[in-house]
């Protein structure tokens, strides 16, 4: 129970004053009008014959006063804006301020924040649970927070370089409050119908502020790398895609540079409209920074530039034991990523029966002289490792009609490769061009560090770091030691939505977290007045 217009003390004092005034009014004598008539004889007889206007005694004070007090208090409480929070156990009301990258445009964020503050001020005493949708949704203020504190915290916020997470937030809230109905007052970028459709059933989302559309926007929506299609592990392919107002405006100029060295789009292959591919970009010993900039003067600048950190070319140390085919040693020396060492290598290349060779490497590439061994056997220490080698063979085409060798992938305590010496010699004798690749990629597979992992999904939210459905609060994100997460903030949806018109905002009345009960009090007062009037007319009240 709370009051929208007055404090509880004011309401209490007002109620007491009303009761006192009504009690005093009971002692007032009515102003009578003296009427002279020809005879009062009939009136005397009528007064004697009229029904008594008291129930059992003259109750001038208690009941009449009580009835008056109830009527007056009902009106007083209605004027005080009484509202009930009785439904709080069944509903959870949340104010959600979107702090995603799209709110960086103009005064979107400040306007949304102002609207939120106004709504909070118009709904004082309510359950003010305010969340900020930044990198991870964070609770700004709980139900007990004062309005001043909430306002101060909100004014310290700025939009962050992240995508809107309202859908994920709503899903998590629904999981946390399965028995409750959740009402979210949303202040942020316009949501799409598909986002509304994905909302859980017990979540009702009310758009109180939707950011206005910008006039035009061009943006980078795809920028990432992958292993080079050529199969060269020392190179990657880079994809660049932009999108924007293709109708009525020209494509802005695009500039690319790697560690300060500019590229020209002419060196890139245009594989689709507004999509370019930089093929076989060579990795270097140190991570390279590949930057792309879109020369557009639109209002939303966040998607006009992007930077991609290319992985450094990893080095693998290889020990070559006695009896190993000479071509293997030459291959190690010729491959830039591989370094021959005399001991303590990451990979030891040995004959299967050379027990002394085993101690020289963490993992082993073994040549087997066993006549029963015809192909190549991979022992993987994990399912991921098994999958990686299978995909490698498929991508390289080694499992095609003319199979390179009989492939078998087994599980083992650590990774190892067992290659039939007979199969090797057969391939070598035939001068199969796939053999060096097989050897090199097998050595790469044996090392735990991939040469170039495919970029993380562009424009997606941070990967789930915890299985807990509880949304993370700011400062709670714990990264594994030395862990890196590749993520792009570019998103086609964000870029496209910048020019989409905002949807109709829902009136603030629907955001009210309280059950309005003052109309019922007015009805009660009217009913009691009517009942009192009837009672007086019928002589039931003095």
């Amino acid at each position: 129970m709370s009051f929208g217009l007055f404090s509880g003390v004011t309401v209490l004092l007002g109620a007491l004053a009303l009761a006192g005034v009504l009690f005093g009014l009971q002692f007032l004598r009515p102003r009578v009008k003296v009427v002279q008539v020809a005879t009062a004889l009939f009136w005397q007889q009528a007064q004697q014959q009229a029904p008594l206007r008291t129930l059992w005694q003259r109750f001038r004070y208690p009941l009449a006063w009580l009835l008056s007090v109830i009527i007056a208090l009902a009106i007083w409480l209605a004027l005080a804006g009484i509202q009930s929070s009785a439904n709080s156990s069944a509903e959870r009301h949340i104010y959600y301020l979107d702090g995603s990258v799209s709110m960086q445009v103009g005064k979107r964020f400040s306007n949304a924040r102002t609207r939120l503050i106004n709504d909070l001020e118009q709904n004082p005493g309510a359950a003010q649970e305010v969340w900020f949708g930044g990198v991870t949704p964070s609770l700004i203020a709980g139900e007990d927070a004062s309005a001043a504190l909430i306002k101060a915290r909100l004014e310290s916020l700025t939009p962050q370089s992240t995508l809107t997470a309202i859908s994920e937030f709503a899903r998590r809230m629904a999981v946390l409050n399965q028995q409750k109905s959740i009402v979210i007052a949303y202040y942020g970028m316009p949501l799409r119908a598909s986002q509304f459709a994905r909302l859980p059933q017990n979540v009702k989302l009310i758009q109180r502020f939707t950011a206005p559309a910008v006039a035009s926007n061009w943006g980078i929506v795809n920028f990432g790398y992958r292993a080079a299609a050529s199969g060269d592990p020392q190179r990657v392919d880079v994809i660049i895609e932009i999108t924007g107002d293709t109708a009525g405006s020209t494509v802005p100029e695009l500039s690319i540079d790697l560690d300060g060295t500019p590229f020209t789009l002419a060196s890139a292959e245009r594989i689709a409209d507004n999509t370019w591919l930089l093929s076989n970009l060579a990795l270097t010993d140190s991570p390279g920074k590949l930057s792309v900039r879109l020369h557009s003067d639109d209002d939303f600048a966040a998607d006009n530039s992007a930077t991609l950190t290319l992985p450094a070319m990893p080095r693998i140390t290889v020990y070559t034991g006695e009896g190993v085919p000479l071509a293997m040693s030459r291959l190690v020396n010729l491959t830039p990523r591989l370094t021959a060492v005399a001991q303590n290598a990451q990979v030891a290349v040995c004959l299967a029966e050379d027990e002394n060779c085993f101690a020289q490497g963490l993992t082993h590439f073994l040549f087997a002289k066993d006549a029963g061994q015809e192909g190549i056997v991979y022992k993987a220490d994990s399912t991921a490792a098994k999958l990686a080698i299978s995909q490698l063979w498929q991508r390289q085409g080694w499992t095609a009609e003319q199979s390179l060798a009989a492939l078998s992938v087994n599980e083992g305590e650590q990774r190892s490769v067992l290659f039939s010496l007979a199969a090797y010699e057969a391939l070598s004798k035939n001068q199969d061009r796939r053999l060096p690749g097989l050897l090199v990629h097998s050595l790469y597979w044996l090392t735990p560090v991939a040469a170039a992992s495919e970029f993380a999904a562009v424009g997606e939210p941070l990967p789930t770091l915890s299985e807990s459905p509880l949304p993370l609060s700011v400062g709670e994100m714990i990264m594994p030691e030395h862990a890196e997460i590749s993520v792009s903030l570019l998103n086609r949806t964000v870029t496209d939505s910048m020019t989409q018109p905002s949807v109709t905002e829902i009136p603030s009345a629907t955001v009210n977290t309280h059950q309005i009960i003052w109309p019922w009090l007015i009805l009660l007062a009217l009913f009691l007045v009517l009942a009192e009037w009837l009672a007086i007319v019928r002589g039931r009240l003095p």
Partner: protein
Amino acid sequence: MALNLNTLFDYEYLAQVQQLSLRIAQAGKGGRLAEQKTSARGQGLEFADFKPYVAGDDLRAIDWNIYRRLGRVFVRVFEEKQDMPVYFLQDASASMFYETTPRIVPALRATLGLAAIALAQHDSVSLMPFGRNLDIQVKGLNGKNNLLQFARVLAECESQAATSLTTAIKTLANLNLRKGLVVIVSDFFDNDGLQKVLAAMANLPHKVLLVQITQPWDAQPELMPEWQGELQIQDCETGAEVAVSPTPDVLKAYKQVYQQFNQDLLKAAQAQGAGLLQLDASQPVLPQLAGLFAQGGLNL
């Protein structure tokens, strides 16, 4: 309220009422020769009886045919029509003079109209205003020419403090006046109660005509302009006060009381063979008065 003779003495009104006639079954004998039936025997046109001749009888009344057959002398006697004494008991209490349209005005006009009728048919009229006591101001006035004098006396009627109709009727009964017609013009608001009035009236040896002066708010108090809020009803004669909340229950009770009052008055009038005219003070007198004389005359 000062009454004005000019407004009271309305020639047109009087000319119309004089066309009416007022009769009673039998007036008391002992009056002058006139037009009312009496028990007196004497001169007249309608044969009544025979009686033996005594010295002094009119020889012209001897029936010679009876004498020839019987040898005895009889004289014919006739019904003698005499005048009817009409006694006007005019209520002059304060209740008749109160209110913005006082009841006394239509009451006096009714009295004057009835007096005009009586004088026009050669009856005698007496005026006895009463308040607490009966006051005889005019007694046995005869002749049309005296109507103005009667009106002048009426116009000088003054308000008296209280009403005691019972006392007035008893006083009238004790006067042993010649039997005639008593016309009581009053609102019949007697503080002693209507039953005492009716009991006294039953002992009157006269025919009675009751003229009850009413106001619209007598039957419908809600027509009073002051009918709202808490009321203190004050009797204009006695000053007695009654606190009244004008609720439907009280109003209903009042109307029942007033209806009972009228019914009692009507029953008493019917039991005594008296006439009763309820005269609404807010309406013209003449049409209401003419309504009492259904066929142009009123026979009591």
